[in-house]
């Protein structure tokens, strides 16, 4: 019998259906991979299991019992989640992090640190960690180690099912290998391991079975031996017949690069980067989370300060001091985290869409052309098909896709030389995604130098004229046209020798 079983689980956020009647079962002693693109519903599924999100309909059974999950009961039932960005207490020690909420105490409520340490040591050693780590502040550890500490925590707290949310995306090769070894060990000891990833190659390395999610629905469930990687890719992208190799290498450009980096260092994220971006060509930057792709371009945008190297804009060296300065120079950047870095949630569409172009509407004494702003917003909304009644609507009331369109419009209307789009289609529905791809293409054709940063390989292959692959803060591949193929790119990105 499966340890965890979901039947017909659905969840809707605002207008977005994050989960649509999901049926899936997770067994003990198995590694079950959940595969899907960003926004396919994986993280909602995890949150549901962790009790952080309550499903609208459907039922969940744990060990044969129907369960109403809350963060507490989920933990008590033996479910533990290791998030990609570990949830930690940075100022507290590793020992305290491991036992938080489950402390061993003597009758007076006093912590029995010695006993806790003794209790933790075997598990630590099992995962190859030195027990001396226990006294260190959690914040001093690297993320890879923090993840391991959280696995220790889960095991000590008696977890029977461990969910891993894209754990390897920010790990080095060695760390990844070590983690995969640990997962195998967990399987041997009879734990249910749920492994969320969008890396197909890892699925083959570790999983016993795989479930593919697309747009919130399960589109396939297979024992790993019964499915090939191309089929998986096809299922993930929701279209089975896309042929990346045939992509026309249109937009080949000649002439001087519009934006270039020379030996750019942005410690600790990126080292010695050199690249050129051409107008009229869509450059995708592909890399895993933590490869330094976002940070290196944030340096170009003046949000981070490079330690050394040069940035050339239209052949002239520039040193953006701040985003404001970069925008004045003609560089734009659409950030990756829409909610935290992009939208002004309780403000209306006009505020949101015009935030970066306000200066263009200045009249006298700092006065803004208010009517002009509304008109521009209205026009932008029509041009990019934003589904909302009028510019006075609060942006938080829009779907994620429409919010993203507003943000896209914010930059598309800014009259820039270079626009950097960081994960422009993360977490939005397929239809809007296609629309945004279309808009990006239009922008490229209008002569703007466009960079799309993505961790979605299909997206890169689908829209990129050229793909720069980053790994661990360096450019490892620079491919165009015929050379674009998934295997090369993927192996370059994860550092596999193929």
């Amino acid at each position, binding site marked *: 019998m499966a340890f965890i079983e979901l039947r017909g689980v659905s969840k809707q956020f605002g207008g977005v259906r994050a989960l649509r009647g999901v049926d899936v079962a997770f067994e003990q002693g198995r590694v079950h991979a959940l595969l899907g693109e960003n926004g396919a519903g994986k993280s909602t599924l995890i949150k549901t299991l962790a009790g952080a999100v309550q499903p609208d309909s459907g039922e969940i059974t744990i060990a044969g019992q129907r369960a109403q999950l809350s963060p507490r009961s989920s933990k008590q039932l033996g479910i533990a989640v290791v998030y990609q960005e570990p949830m930690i207490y940075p100022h507290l020690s590793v020992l305290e992090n491991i036992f938080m909420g489950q402390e061993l105490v003597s009758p007076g409520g006093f912590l029995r640190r010695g006993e806790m340490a003794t209790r933790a040591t075997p598990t630590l050693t099992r995962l190859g960690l030195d027990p001396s780590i226990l006294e260190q502040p959690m914040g001093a550890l690297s993320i890879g180690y923090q993840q391991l500490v959280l696995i220790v925590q889960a095991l000590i707290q008696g977890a029977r099912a461990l969910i891993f949310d894209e754990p390897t995306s920010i790990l080095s090769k060695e760390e990844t290998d070590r983690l995969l070894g640990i997962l195998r060990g967990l399987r041997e000891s009879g734990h249910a391991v749920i492994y969320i990833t969008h890396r197909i190659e890892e699925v083959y390395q570790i999983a016993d079975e795989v479930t593919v999610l697309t747009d919130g629905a399960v589109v396939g469930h297979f024992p790993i031996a019964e499915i090939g990687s191309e089929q998986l890719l096809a299922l993930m992208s929701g279209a089975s017949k896309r042929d990346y190799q045939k992509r026309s290498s249109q937009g080949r450009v000649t002439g001087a690069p519009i934006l270039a980096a020379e030996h750019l260092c942005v410690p600790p994220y990126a080292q010695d980067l050199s690249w050129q971006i051409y107008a009229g060509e869509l450059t995708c930057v592909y890399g895993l989370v933590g490869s330094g792709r976002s940070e290196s371009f944030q340096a170009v*945008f003046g*949000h981070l300060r490079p330690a050394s190297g040069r940035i050339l804009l239209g052949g002239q060296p520039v040193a953006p001091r*701040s*985003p*404001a300065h*970069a*925008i*004045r120079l003609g560089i734009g*950047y659409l*950030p990756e985290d829409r909610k*935290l*870095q*992009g*939208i*002004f*949630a*309780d*403000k209306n569409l006009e*505020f949101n869409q015009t*935030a*970066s172009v*306000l*200066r263009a509407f*200045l009249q006298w*004494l*700092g*006065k*803004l052309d*208010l009517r002009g702003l509304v008109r521009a917003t209205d026009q932008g909304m029509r041009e990019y098909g934003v589904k909302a009644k009028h510019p*006075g609507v*609060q942006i938080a*009331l829009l779907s994620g896709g429409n919010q993203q369109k507003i943000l896209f419009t*914010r930059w598309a209307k800014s009259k820039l030389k270079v626009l950097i789009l960081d994960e422009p289609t993360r977490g939005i529905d397929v239809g809007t995604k296609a629309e945004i791809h279309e808009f990006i293409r239009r922008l490229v054709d209008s002569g703007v130098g466009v960079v799309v940063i993505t961790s979605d390989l299909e997206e890169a292959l689908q829209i990129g004229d050229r793909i720069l692959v980053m790994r661990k803060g360096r450019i490892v591949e620079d491919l165009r046209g015929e050379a674009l193929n998934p295997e090369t790119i993927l192996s370059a990105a994860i550092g596999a020798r193929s």
Partner: protein
Amino acid sequence: MSRLLSSRNALLVLISAVIWIAFAAVQPSILSATSLRSMVVLAVEVGVIALGQTFVIISGGGGIDLSVGSIFALSSVTAGLLMTHGVAWPLAALTALLAGLGMGALNGVVIVALRIPPLMTTLATLFGYSGVALILSGGVDISGFPKGFFAIGQSRLLEIPVQFLLIYLPILLILLFVERASYFGRALYLSGTNETAARLSGIEVGKIRFLVYALSGLLSGVAGIVNASRLTVARPDAGGSANLVSITIAVLGGANIFGGEGSVVGTALASLAIGSVTYGLSYVNANPVFEGGIVGGILIFSVLAQGLLGRLQRARA
């Protein structure tokens, strides 16, 4: 759809009306032009400070200015000392304004450049500025100002107190313009709503915040000068409760303590409401000790109401 008459502002007008009616029931004679004038005169000073406080709170990042009362006192002491040393009063007033501006700017620099939380910074300068005011004045009243200076706080134009007509109203209108129609206002709201998004949209959040604290200092200086002119003395201990009252007014007027929300019109109406309560209480000879408690109660109530209004709006949408 005019934002001028939002439901909150209408509520504030209603509250003020109810307050006056209630007081009139106790003491009918309160309904007179003289009373209204007195109330306005008394409300103007803290009202001006509250306008600055509102912008500070809107700017976000834990924005709060506890030092307004001390800036108020030090500015008036500055003006007073200059005048008693023979400086012409317009020059003295101007210098005092610059002093207020400078003190606010110092707050701004510390908050923006050294990244010390506003609460801590302005707590420290609250001590600091009032200490300097005490040192400069030797702790005593400064008085004996030239006659012309008293025009600021004591004269009337068209039967309307000058400090309302020629100081408060113009400031209110300018700030209303800034808030609704200027680049600065737009950038202010954006900075307060989502600091990172604003920065990434090319808004210089640091500059905006710096200016907001400088403005708060300037307006506290204005209030200090009006006060010195009205009372004919400059005192180092003036403005003691200005921080509490100005924050109460701003929050009551709709400023969200987490930034991004608030309006000068709301603040002006809230000044009216608070001014009515305090004036009315003294007029009907109520036990004066209720005043502080009532202001505190209104503060808690207004935050609760804000949360409720927000929830209602969201529910309606």
